[in-house]
């Protein structure tokens, strides 16, 4: 475990609600997102995509397209002659440009760069692909059965027992104790099966990039991504070039939520640019985003929970079957780890399954794998509580994990905030507010790990005493502001004096992707450490100026002060004063910090929701919604609240209406916002966020990541509310009106 970094302190800047530095650009339309950049002589690139769910590519004839006016390059998989070094990157290459088979509706099979959209589109029509259509499978349960159409051979791991199709890639098991003995002690046992549909992150900005690549094997890429270092490393591996020869600059990013943690267009654009010798811009249409980026897994889950009459869970089991599209992704395992994580269980067996189907490869979506698992587990927890006549919050409090609990996935918890969120929920007026006819209230808990990872930060002191901070993670929702705040806090200077920029891959060392809720934690930690590094240098400069030992200098309120026996002998030297003379005291001053950050600190949340169900149509209305989450320390409370509100609303969409609908032919039926129904403003009430601050021991200010946990409880919370309002247990997501009405009528 990481060492204890947390120190209690009074904050001056952290915890206030300052204006973000990129705000002006973003309210005036000046900010440059992925599709907003152009280059002289630029071409536009488009992909040709498979109309089939599963097909062998017998041949591709591009000759006619190549000869067309305005067409400057046509590429297929044959142009990617380099074999990537890692297995993972080979899958990514197979995903961005199909190899011998198209594995899903929308899989790219060729691409064109041309001088105009119309020329490129005409060229796409002229490419002749000879497909042999193969049987396909999109449902997780069907895909597991022996005899199911199989996507790959020889990829099944040894963990998979006999009797399954080759689509089942892996099985993993977590837990402890003896579940049979535990169920034997139970007074009440409830067992249920659940299904959840695949959903999409739904970021409003489609993937886009501008690539410039020459035959000298040097390249520049501008793109919207959650991690430009990841883009650089992956593209370099795919193109067979040294990563240092490719510079990637992150554009402003119009949402990601995990969906922009891999590459789709970028290697294709680079290859088109290399072949044409011209800059190439590519942007996905919404249809392409839906069909061919990275949605979530769809799942099939069985949960069994046993309890005593007085509310102690004696045993629990879970089978978490996740299809993650056409390649391996660790999703079922994450579900199996997270589902039961809020509880202190004596006896647990939790099994995750990874299954391939003819769908696009799943990408992360805020706490990947966890929301569906929480939906299933928390639904049964709710039913068990109801069965024994206990208040659902009391039942959860009785079984809640605490510091010292052995977690569902193995490790023992340090200080955690689950109990605090449950107690806050119980004490909140929402929990005791009266309900009307056809209304129901639900509660649900959720867990996410949070990550740290590779992080670099550089902090430069400018001659006038202002500070420039370089970080390497795209700012997806106010993180530049948070970094400036933490640097200002640590240095003791005003927030306005610190300007944070997101550096390109050639200007700062390797940084992990903006994922795992890591940025405010890990980059924040690195920022504080970089500031401390700069402070050490400034103290040394002051000491030299005064002719005393550096150890005899302390840093107070943004200034070096003589301490100990020298206290009061010299007037303090401020950052501004030290900066003004730095050229004469030893040269420029900069602090930096590089580490693989540990100690991210797990995160818990509890949500409450009131719904009203129209018994004649099955329509569900969200009446009231309150989120309780432990943020460790909220650096910028507005942006923490925003994460909680945004996560909850994405969860509302997932619970009620969002779903990937595949037709009999395996093609996606609703590849657009019209029929992939994300919540609109008029669907919602205000979302009340309640931030709890249980300091994370792994961070100097106690910060925990908050970005992901907010999407974990909603599916269960809303299902519990709807089940109570409708008087019938809902076990399949989304709870769209036809399903709710059918359940009411069947009851």
């Amino acid at each position: 475990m990481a060492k204890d970094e947390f120190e209690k302190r009074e904050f001056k800047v952290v915890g206030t609600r300052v204006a973000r530095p990129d705000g002006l650009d973003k309210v005036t339309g000046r900010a440059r997102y992925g599709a907003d950049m152009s280059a002289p002589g630029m071409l536009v690139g488009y992909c040709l995509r498979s109309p089939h769910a599963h097909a062998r590519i017998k041949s591709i004839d591009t000759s006619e397209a190549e000869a067309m006016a305005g067409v400057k390059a046509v590429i297929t998989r044959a142009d990617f002659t380099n074999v990537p070094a890692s297995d993972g990157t080979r899958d990514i290459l197979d995903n961005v440009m199909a190899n011998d088979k198209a594995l899903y509706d929308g899989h790219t099979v060729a691409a064109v760069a041309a001088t105009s959209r119309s020329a490129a589109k005409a060229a796409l029509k002229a490419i002749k692909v000879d497909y042999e259509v193969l049987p396909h499978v999109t449902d997780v349960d069907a895909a597991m059965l022996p005899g199911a159409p199989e996507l790959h051979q020889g990829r099944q791991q040894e963990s998979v027992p006999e009797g399954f199709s080759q689509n089942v890639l892996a099985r993993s098991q977590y837990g402890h104790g003896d579940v049979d003995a535990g169920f034997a002690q139970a007074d009440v046992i409830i067992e249920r099966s659940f299904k959840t549909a695949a959903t999409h992150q739904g970021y409003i900005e489609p993937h886009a990039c501008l690539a410039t690549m020459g035959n000298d094997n040097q390249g520049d890429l501008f793109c919207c991504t959650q991690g430009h270092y990841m883009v650089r490393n992956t593209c370099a591996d795919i193109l067979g070039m040294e990563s240092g020869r490719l510079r990637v600059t992150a554009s402003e990013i119009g949402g990601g939520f995990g969906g922009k943690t891999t590459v789709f267009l970028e290697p294709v654009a680079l290859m088109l640019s290399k072949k044409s010798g011209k800059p190439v811009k590519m942007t996905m249409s919404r249809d392409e985003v839906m069909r061919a980026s990275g949605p979530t897994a769809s799942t099939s889950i069985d949960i069994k929970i046993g309890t005593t009459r007085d509310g102690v869970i004696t045993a629990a089991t879970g089978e978490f079957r996740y299809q993650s599209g056409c390649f391996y992704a660790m999703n079922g395992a994450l579900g199996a780890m997270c589902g039961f994580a809020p509880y202190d269980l004596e006896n647990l067996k939790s099994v995750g399954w990874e299954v391939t189907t003819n769908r696009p490869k799943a990408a992360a979506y805020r706490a990947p794998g966890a929301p569906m698992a929480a939906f299933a587990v928390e639904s049964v927890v709710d039913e068990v509580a109801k069965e024994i006549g206990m208040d659902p919050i009391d039942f959860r409090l009785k079984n809640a994990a605490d510091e010292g609990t052995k977690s569902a996935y193995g490790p023992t918890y340090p200080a955690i905030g689950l109990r605090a969120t449950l107690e806050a929920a119980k004490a909140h007026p929402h929990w005791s507010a009266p309900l009307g006819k056809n209304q129901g209230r639900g509660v649900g808990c959720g867990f996410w790990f949070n990550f740290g990872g590779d992080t670099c930060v550089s902090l430069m002191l400018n001659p006038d005493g202002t500070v420039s901070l370089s970080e390497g993670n795209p700012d997806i929702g106010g993180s530049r502001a948070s970094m400036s705040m933490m640097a200002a806090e640590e240095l003791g200077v005003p927030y306005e004096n610190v300007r944070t920029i997101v550096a390109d891959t050639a200007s700062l060392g390797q940084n992990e992707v903006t994922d795992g809720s890591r940025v405010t934690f890990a980059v924040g930690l690195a920022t504080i450490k970089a500031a401390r590094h700069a402070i050490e240098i400034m103290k040394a400069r002051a000491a030299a100026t005064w002719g005393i030992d550096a150890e005899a200098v302390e840093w107070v309120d943004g200034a070096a002060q003589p301490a100990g026996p020298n206290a009061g002998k010299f007037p303090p030297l401020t950052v501004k004063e030290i900066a003004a003379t730095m050229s004469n005291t030893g040269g420029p001053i900069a602090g930096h910090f590089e580490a693989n950050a540990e100690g991210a600190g797990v995160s818990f949340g509890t949500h409450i929701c009131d719904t009203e169900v129209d018994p004649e149509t099955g329509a569900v209305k969200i009446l009231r919604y309150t989120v309780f989450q432990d943020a460790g320390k909220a650096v910028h409370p507005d942006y923490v609240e925003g994460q909680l509100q945004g996560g909850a609303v994405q969860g509302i969409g997932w619970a009620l209406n969002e779903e990937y609908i595949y037709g009999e032919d395996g093609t996606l039926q609703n590849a657009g916002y019209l029929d992939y129904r994300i919540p609109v403003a008029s669907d919602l009430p205000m979302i009340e966020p309640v931030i709890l601050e249980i300091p994370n021991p792994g961070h100097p200010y106690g910060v925990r990541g908050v970005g992901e946990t907010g999407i974990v409880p909603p599916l269960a919370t809303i299902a519990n509310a709807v089940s109570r309002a409708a008087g019938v247990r809902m076990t399949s997501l989304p709870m769209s009106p036809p399903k709710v009405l059918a359940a009411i009528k069947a009851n």
Partner: protein
Amino acid sequence: MKFETPHSVDDAVAILRADPEARVLAGGTDLLVRLRAGHISPSAVVDIKRIPGMRDISQEDGGWRIGAGVSCAEMGEHAGLKAAYPGVVEGAELIGSTQVQGRCTMAGNLCNAGPAGDSVPAMVAAQATARVAGPNGTRDVAVFDIPTAPGQTSLAEGEFITSIFLPAPPAHSSDAYLRFIPRTEMDIAVVGCAVNLTLDAAGTVTSASMSLGAVGPKVKQVDASALVGTICDDAAVEALAAAATAAATPIDDKRGTIAFRKDVSGVLAKRAARIAYIRAKGASS
């Protein structure tokens, strides 16, 4: 593709007649979506909005004539039209978002011939007619007869709709339109239902019409005689609901199931009838 902006009905007819692959452009909220998605590739689009009269709402024989270029937002802002036909206007105003409202037209909704067009059931229940201009002059056609199947209309080559006419509403009459969608906005109707009622001075229904959207290949006219002679009491609206459910012939698709659509047809029939009745009772002659 060419872009044409005729300044008279005759010019528009001439262009459409000369080029059967040309498409009329009204608000473009269907046409441009399909154009950009590559579902259609017309040889020309003919913007009819610059033809005089296309953007006018005017009173005629006690009824209302609505030009084919009038946006649904403009209808919603027209107090007289709204008072005469609240159901027609609410159907038109349900189309799309604020942004779509600023462009979309009832004639475009009708000619797009989607089974779920929100403005169509109330027009049909109101016995509205469309004025069609073509190579042989103009003709008036019942709105019900314009769509023939999904995406298909009875308009002949060279023809287009210049206006929609809503006849003079009888005394003590009114209408209502309701649709069911999974969200509160931005969805295509899973079921749509319009009811148009006329009462006598005592409040007894003397004539009633109902039409349903999204439950068949085109808008359906459903027998609403169950309400006639009643004061829209529970038994009468239940009978109307049963008629709606029986008349609906929907399909299973991504937006709803057969069973759901049939059930909800009945639910909306009840609810729309009650609203129309209250409005008709309150409506001054």
